[in-house]
């Protein structure tokens, strides 16, 4: 039942939000990419969060940490929908009918998501700081 395990929890939250932010940045940078090494347009990537029990790095096997649930970015899902087809006959990547396949990315949506990831990251930092303060106050009792 140690407070130290919740530092691990906040750290896991920060890591997950950072992964999410990285993928969103990748999506935004490739919003207009029509040509990828695998052929075809860029496909949007999304992250899947999953709750994950956490324990402190110093805990023993006999620890039962039922209260500390961290988070883990367990999976990266690639968008499998058909790409967005736009009629651009002069484009180098146009197909026989003059359509170019563009990624299905809505930049406004991903920007808002990015702000959400940043806010989540900040919230986890705040939680870690608050817990660290509490631990320091406990040590203060000795003085």
């Amino acid at each position, binding site marked *: *039942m140690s407070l130290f395990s919740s530092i691990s929890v906040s750290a896991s939250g920060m890591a997950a939000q950072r992964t999410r932010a990285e993928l969103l940045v990748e999506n935004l940078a490739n919003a207009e990419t029509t040509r990828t090494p695998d052929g075809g347009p860029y496909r949007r990537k999304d992250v899947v969060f999953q709750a994950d029990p956490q324990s402190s790095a110093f805990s023993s096997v006999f620890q039962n940490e039922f209260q500390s649930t*961290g988070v883990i970015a367990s999976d990266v899902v690639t968008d499998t929908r058909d790409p967005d087809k736009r009629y651009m006959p002069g484009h180098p990547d146009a197909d026989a009918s003059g359509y170019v396949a563009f990624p299905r990315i809505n930049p406004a949506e991903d920007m808002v998501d990015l702000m959400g990831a940043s806010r*989540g990251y900040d919230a986890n930092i705040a939680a870690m700081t608050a*817990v660290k303060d509490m631990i320091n106050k406990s040590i*203060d009792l000795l003085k």
Partner: protein
Amino acid sequence: MLDSIGSNLQQYMDLLATRQKLVASNIANADTPGYKTKDIDFQFEYQSLAPGDTPNVRDVSGLKTKNDGNNVSIDREARLLSENAIRFNVASSLLKNQIRGIRTAIQEGK
């Protein structure tokens, strides 16, 4: 006589630490689909819990659930984060005072 020094305050601090751990978990899982906010009934556990026992973790009622099943309210968690930290501060200062008082009383008899 010395056994019960600050036992109330210690119980209070124990429960605050438990609550803060749950808040940290809630914040980390603020975007996890299907995750439900967790908390303890603070006053109930404070009045009735035996020292050394683990309190009952329960789901929170009255929270709005988002489309992906997650019901964490980041405002609620932020508020609880500060409140728990401040209360913990207060309790540890009061405890420190108690210890100092008893120590002075012991040493005055010299």
